[in-house]
């Protein structure tokens, strides 16, 4: 990263980290918590979906696996708050392990077929959890929340999710600029050509898939603790899977900044629009946003403004 953007990034993170000291209302912490969470989800999705061009429509599965793993660990061992938060790391590892197992056969499939396999995968996980009594089945799981004032506990969750976001973004950034990232881009551009250039595409794809599953798994664990009651419908919903993809693509898939921009815009607009009195109209405006942005910026917001900036410089 060049100097100026790096300083800006550090400043942004610092401001965000200090935000709870202003003692904002709990809602803002919760809202930013979900916003950070979606940045984590769409940015890590971007590793497999954006860089490698494998559009996974089942990423909610990893999110949900993380959520249920954490919830199960926390309730089964009556973990302390700190341990519960930490347990989201093994939960993320579990998600990554599942990605490794599932990715091996699935990543041989290309294009839209891969997308559909991942949809099926997410359904399978969702239905399996609903049928397993030990995981709460169709009832869901309750977690005991930390015995702290609400402001403090929400601030803790906020800081932890912020940390996860920073780690995710840094990892994705470094990956994108490494040989690994270039290899993935080669896979997206033309997988056969990449293979002839002796790029180990199969290995790269698996690694990308595992990475892109790990962070959502951790985020899922934190989300479970944040919600304190989780139900399969709340974490495995196909809407979450679709939203992750849309956020990344809306901003611009394959770029580092794209998913961040997409996640921020869509989360803010969607949350804000929900305050409208006439709910349907709000949803219609939200839908129109997708249409207008796609018509004018068919390759995503980032690509559009990059082109615009180059044009400005030329002119």
């Amino acid at each position, binding site marked *: 990263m060049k100097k100026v953007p790096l300083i800006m990034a550090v400043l942004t993170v610092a401001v965000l980290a200090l935000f709870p000291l202003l003692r904002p209302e709990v809602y803002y912490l919760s809202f930013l918590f979900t916003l950070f969470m979606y940045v984590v989800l769409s940015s890590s999705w971007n590793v497999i979906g954006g860089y490698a061009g494998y559009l996974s429509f089942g990423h909610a599965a990893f999110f949900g696996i993380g959520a249920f793993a954490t919830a199960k660990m926390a309730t089964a061992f009556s973990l302390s708050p700190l341990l519960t938060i930490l347990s989201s790391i093994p939960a993320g590892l579990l998600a990554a392990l599942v990605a490794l197992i599932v990715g091996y056969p699935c990543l041989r499939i290309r294009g839209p077929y891969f997308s559909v396999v991942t949809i099926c995968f997410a359904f399978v996980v969702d239905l399996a959890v609903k049928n397993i009594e030990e995981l709460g089945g169709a009832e869901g799981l309750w977690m005991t929340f930390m015995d702290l004032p609400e402001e403090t506990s929400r601030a803790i969750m906020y800081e932890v999710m912020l940390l996860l976001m920073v780690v995710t973004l840094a990892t994705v950034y470094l990956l994108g600029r490494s040989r690994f990232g270039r290899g993935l881009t080669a896979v997206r551009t033309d997988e056969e050509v990449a293979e002839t250039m002796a790029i180990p595409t199969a290995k790269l794809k698996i690694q990308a898939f595992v990475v892109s599953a790990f962070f959502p798994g951790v985020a899922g664990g934190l989300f479970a603790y944040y919600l304190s009651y989780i139900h399969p419908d709340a974490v495995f919903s196909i809407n979450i899977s679709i939203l992750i993809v849309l956020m990344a693509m809306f901003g611009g898939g394959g770029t580092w900044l794209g998913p961040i921009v997409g996640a921020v815009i869509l989360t803010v607009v969607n949350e804000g629009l929900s305050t409208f009195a006439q709910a349907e109209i709000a*949803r219609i405006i939200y839908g129109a946003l997708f249409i207008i942005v796609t018509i004018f910026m068919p*390759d995503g917001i980032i690509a559009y403004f990059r082109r615009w900036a180059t044009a400005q410089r030329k002119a």
Partner: protein
Amino acid sequence: MDPVLVIQSLISGVMMGMVYALLGVGFSLTWGVMHVIHISHAVFGLLGAYFAYTLLTLYGVDPVVSAMVSTPLLFIVACAVYQVLIRPLTKAREMVVASMILTFGLAIILENLLVLVWKADPRLLTPSYASESWIIGPFYLQYPHLIGFALSLVGISSLYVFLKKTTTGMAVRAAWQNQEAARLYGVNLFRISMITFALAVSTAGAGGISLALLYSFEPHSHNLWLIYLFLVVIVGGVGNVIGTALAGLIIGVITGLSMAFLPYQWVNLITFGLLMVFLIFRPHGLFGEVG
């Protein structure tokens, strides 16, 4: 295992699968020919269902008649939608992605317009034969299933005949096998795309009516329908009309058999699990992409 249960489950499963195939076949075409993944496809199916519902409740028009009427109407609507929304997308570097995002937005808009016009309450399409059966020995052929099945057969086979026997249909197939060559011989891709899109949407309307004969529907039902038609399309092979129909049958058989032999709790899990395994071994569908 009781043979009556198995056969009865198979019959209704197969009919159900065919109905999804009618909804899916157009989706398959737009995807194969135009590289447009049309997320709002099933909403147009719902539009057909609401259209039939309104005609039935207000004027007693039979859903089959409504299907005949809605097809040309939706064709015209779809031409407009194509010109205004889909055609500009040809500029996109990745048409598939851009089309998905755009039509996702369109689906949200249409869904909520449906709520504004018809309210969010669930609806049922209940012609006089809604829960009657044709009884053959120990078996019951439910009329709504039969009619949905027949509509699907007619819809899919007319689409097939159109593609195989007409010049325009040939141009559609040509366009999707090799766009550049098709253009060189005078095929106007925009016109062909518009026709493909419009045909897809109008068959979706008929498919929606057939589905409405089987299930209740509400404005958000399209999300569920979309998942099923996605599966039918993928198993059949993208762009493969006959494949889609056969895939409908296969998914019907899987559902029917698993309902006959398994605890219901596991049926959906097994269905999706089997599909996943199936896709892993036959990544381009049972019948290949082109046909």
